[in-house]
Structures are given as C-alpha cells and as structure tokens.
C-alpha cells in the first residue's frame, strides 16, 4: 500500500470525523431506530392488551337476541332491547355494552357501545366479548376440539434437503442477508460522498496543486480507502445499537427463533464478505468514474441516479429470487455487472446459488471493479483540470 495514498486517506478520514454534519448524518439512523423503539415500547402494541379480560371495576351488559350465551354467562345478560343497552352506556350504568343480534350466525357482527376516550386506536375492549363467547363455546365442546378450533397450537417445521438432511434455510440466510442490508446501506449513504470526494478538487480549483504533489492514482486510492473507513464507522455506529436491541429482546419468540437457527458456516461467511468488499469497490469505482467525468457534484447527481437504480434493480424483482429454480431475469441480473452484487447476495441468502456460480459472479464483480477503478483514475487524471460542465456529445448543440 502506498504511503502517499495512506496520507490522503488519513486527511480525508480526519476531516470528515471532525465535521458535526458527518456525525449528525451518521447518528440519524440509530437515533431514529431508538426513537421508534421508544415509541413502540411506550405506546406500542406490546404494551397493549389485544385480548383484554373483564376486570372487577368494569361494568358490562349484553343483550343476546341470538340466544347463544349459556346460563354461565347470565350475569352479563340484561333484559331489554338495544336502545335500552345504549341508554345504560350513556347514563354511565355500564362501561361496555354488546348487542348480539338475531342474525349473528349469518352476518357475524356484534354491536359494541362504550364512551369514547379520544382517538382510542389501541383500545381493544371490544375483544372482551370474543373471550366470553369463546369461553361460552368451550364449555359446550371437548377440550381437544377447542384446541383444534382455536388453532392455538404450534406446528414445528422440520425441512429436509433432497439428500434427507435437516434443512435450515432461515439460519443460512441470516448472515448473507445481513451483509446485503449493510451493502444496501452503503449504496444509499455513500454515493453522494464518493461524488463529493471526487469533484471537490475541481470545485475548489485545487486539482493542479494537488496533482503536482500526488499522483491521481494514489489520490483516488486514498479517497477510496477513506470512504471505506468512514463506511465502517457508519456501519459500526448503526449495527451496534441494532445488536443491543436484539440482545435486549432476545426472549422475543421471533428473535429467539432466528438467533437459535443462525448457521455459522465460516466458508460461506468468508465468501460473502469477499463479495461485499468487491461490490463496495465496484460501487466506489462507478461513483468515482462518474465524478471524474464532470466538474461539479450537481452535474454528477444526474448521472449517478441510473447507476444506483441498476445496482438495486434486483430488489425490484425480489419475488423472482424466492423461486428454487432461477429464471432468465434472475440469471441476467446475476451476471449484469452493476446488478450482480445484490443479485448474488440475494441468491446466496436464499440458497439458490451454487459454489461455481458464486465464484464466477465474484470473479466478474472483482474484475469489473478493477476495470472501473482504473478507468476512473485515467479519467480523473485526464479531466482533473477540465472545469467545464460535462455533457455527452449527443446532447451538445451543433
């Protein structure tokens, strides 16, 4: 590694780390996650009882025109019609009133009346009747039938591979998909920064001074290293709070299922990390190539959009990647250079990518990354002191 490239990288990293704007952008995501977590913790559904039971302070009345409630529930049943029940709510004689109409079995509807307490979006008091009706029904049938009818049992999924071994698709998918998420974040957060880093010398009219002090190759490599380091800082800043949240919620059934199923296969993990690194270089090279063609970040922004869309294109066809046998579109996206990284990561995650195909894809992404970075260096050197607005030839006025 060139000493000069490292000096460039050090300067680029330190100047970014000193900027409050960098930390504001970097902390925005974890803060947002923390805020959402706080909101859901404080007001969210996990604190809301979706199947409440009747407490001793709540008075309830039911008019049962359908006649489905047994004598055990007679304490709640009142004599009178619907208007009478509604009046009881209005007068404060009861808190909750349910009217079970005659055609309940056909229409499957019950009227529920209570005094509103504002927006009330997390009020599930109406479900009290469901509990009472279920309890009423359970008293009339066999307990085994109750389990069968309520569906209140777990189906343990034991998948087998074609060779008869236990299949753990979810466990195998977790790490490749996590790497894909990190790569997606990198694309979303770093495209603009790469462009800015490339055009900054031109925008500040400093290209001549810098390129007579350091070679364009080492300047670009230094900038790429710096962006990688900053990306790592950003990813760590994002991932650590997520891991803390996962740890705090490790008893949650869904999270504990995922955690217990994660399959640590060092070879697969290493291959996916290598693919991630090659993909990052390909993306960085593409951004720098675009940046080297133009004079300002504003000019670059109109060209970077299509490149980003091509990169994330496989996500638009996500459902096609679930199929056990990849189709023509999936194959095209796997081998088209810009879409290859995400397509390979998806297929690796969903278990539809063989080792040979993975290695071919990895080789393609790596070779393309090298080509595009060399192209970017050459273009940067050529255009470094061109301060004109870039326009493709076919757009130029004759």
């Amino acid at each position, binding site marked *: 590694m060139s000493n000069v490239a490292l000096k460039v990288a050090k300067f680029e990293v330190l100047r970014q780390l000193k*900027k409050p704007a960098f930390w504001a952008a970097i902390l925005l995501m974890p803060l947002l996650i923390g805020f959402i977590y706080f909101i859901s913790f404080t007001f969210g559904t996990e604190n809301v009882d979706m199947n409440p039971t009747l407490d001793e302070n709540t008075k309830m009345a039911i008019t049962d025109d359908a006649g489905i409630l047994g004598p055990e529930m007679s304490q709640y049943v009142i004599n009178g019609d619907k208007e009478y029940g509604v009046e009881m709510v209005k007068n404060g004689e009861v808190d909750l009133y349910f009217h079970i109409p005659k055609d309940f079995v056909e229409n499957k509807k019950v009227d529920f009346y209570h005094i509103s307490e504002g927006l009330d979006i997390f009020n599930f008091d109406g479900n009290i009747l469901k509990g009472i009706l279920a309890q009423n029904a359970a008293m009339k049938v066999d307990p085994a039938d109750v389990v069968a009818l309520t569906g209140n049992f777990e189906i343990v999924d034991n998948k087998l591979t074609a060779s008869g071994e236990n299949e753990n698709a979810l466990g195998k998918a977790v790490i490749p998909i996590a790497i894909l998420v990190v790569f997606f974040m990198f694309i979303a957060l770093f495209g603009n920064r790469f462009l800015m880093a490339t055009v900054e010398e031109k925008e500040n009219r400093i290209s*001549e001074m810098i390129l*007579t002090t*350091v*070679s364009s190759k080492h300047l670009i490599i230094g900038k790429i290293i710096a962006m990688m380091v900053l990306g790592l800082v950003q990813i760590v800043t994002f991932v650590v709070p997520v891991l803390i949240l996962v740890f705090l919620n490790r008893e949650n059934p869904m999270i504990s299922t995922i955690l217990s199923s994660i399959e640590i296969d060092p070879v697969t993990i290493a291959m996916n990390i290598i693919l991630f690194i090659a993909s990052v270089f390909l993306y960085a090279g593409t951004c720098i190539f675009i940046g080297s063609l133009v004079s300002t970040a504003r000019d670059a922004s109109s060209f970077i959009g299509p490149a980003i869309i091509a990169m994330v294109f496989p996500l638009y066809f996500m459902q096609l990647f679930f199929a056990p046998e990849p189709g023509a579109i999936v194959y095209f996206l796997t081998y088209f250079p810009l879409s290859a990284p995400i397509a390979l990561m998806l297929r690796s995650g969903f278990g539809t990518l063989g080792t040979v195909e993975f290695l071919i894809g990895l080789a393609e992404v790596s070779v393309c990354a090298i080509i595009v970075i060399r192209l970017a260096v050459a273009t940067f050197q050529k255009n470094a002191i061109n*301060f004109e607005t870039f326009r493709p030839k076919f757009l130029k006025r004759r």
Partner: protein
Amino acid sequence: MKNIVEVKNFKMKFGNKTVISNLSFEVKKGEIFGLLGSNGSGKTTTLRALLGLYTPTEGELLIDGKKYNPEDSSVIVGYLPEERGLYRKETVIDTMTYFGELKGLKDPKEWSLKYLKRVGLLDKINEKIEKLSGGQQQKIQLGITIMGNPKLLILDEPTKGFDPMNRKLLMEIIDELHQKGTAIILITHYMDEVEKLCDRVILLKDGKARAYGKISDIKKEFGKKSLDQIFVEIYGGENE
C-alpha cells in the same frame, strides 16, 4: 547536469487544433527563467505538460532528466498555478500540514507554523480557509508552493490578484529561494518584473518560440531598449 528543465520538440494538439508546435528550450539550474507570451500563446499548456497534467502529443519534457513524477522526493517542485484554490472548508493548519505531509516534509506542522508566523497569520491557524480574506488565502497558497525547499519553482502569473504587500512578500521569497539555488520559471505579463528578475526568457506566440535567450541578447536581436517594446512588436498585431 546543468539543466533542471529540458523541453525537446514538444507538440500539443487538442482534437484537431495544434496549440504548441516543435517547442524546445531549457531552464538552467538556479536561474530565473521567464516564460512569456500573450493569452493563449501556450504558456500554461507547456507547464501542464511539463508537470504531467497533460500528455504531450509529441516530444519530451523532462525535469532533472526525467519525466515528472509528483511522488519522486528527489525532485521537489513547487507550483503555483494560475487556477488557484484551497480546501475551503478546512482549517489553515490542517491544509498546510496535509500538503507538507504529501511533499514529504519531516515536520510539516512545525514548518507551517514558522511560515504562518513569518507572514503574520499565526492567529489564523484554526480558521477555515473560506473565512480568510483573498490576500490571506494567497499567502497560504504561496506557503504550500514553497514547502520543502523546491529545486524548481513554477509560478504562473504569481502576482495576479496579489495586493502590494503580498507582491512584496512574493518577491522576497523568490529572492530567498533563488539565493539558495532554486530554479524559477516565471509566467507573467508584467515586463518590468521580468527585466528585474529573469536571467533568460522565451517568448511564445501561437505555440511557437519567437525569441529565446538572455534578455540583453533578445533586446539586441530586436533592436529595442525594453521587453515591453519587444512584446508590443511581437503581439501588437493581435489586438488590431
């Protein structure tokens, strides 16, 4: 080797347009050399090709016997380009230290502090460049240019936009470096500066050398008393 710069049969084309044709000249070690000409005559293009920013169409441009490599620490070149700028959002000391590190200075921060003290900007070390006045920014650019005692100093219209105080400072610095043996290539439109400072000059017109040698010899050749008169004779027709 006597020459710090050798330009041999240099030709430069941009598309179909030839901007420099068959240009050859040398700059001797330790001399102050004037690269003169009207706007568009090819001065800046020649310097950019010499510094590897442009690839010449034909010919050879050498500094200390080899093609210029900015990372070759055996030949330190200070270049103050016509297009000037700095990292506007960075502080004075960070910018100077960065360039000092790239130029291989042993203690770039210490060098920068000494320079800033000399030019009266020590109280601005932690200011962002964009907060400085134009004159103060010029001092920073000049400091970056002369870092590391360059063997060759290339100044492209150095006094353009300089206030009288900075112009005086620049002249002092040129003189100091010249005394230390630094060769200087000076591009300027001020002929009084050239007569005062330069040992030899080359006058370009349309990418070709119209005069080359010692100032006294050129005056004899053109039968004129001053470079101003020679300049008017060569380029006068361009404005008619």
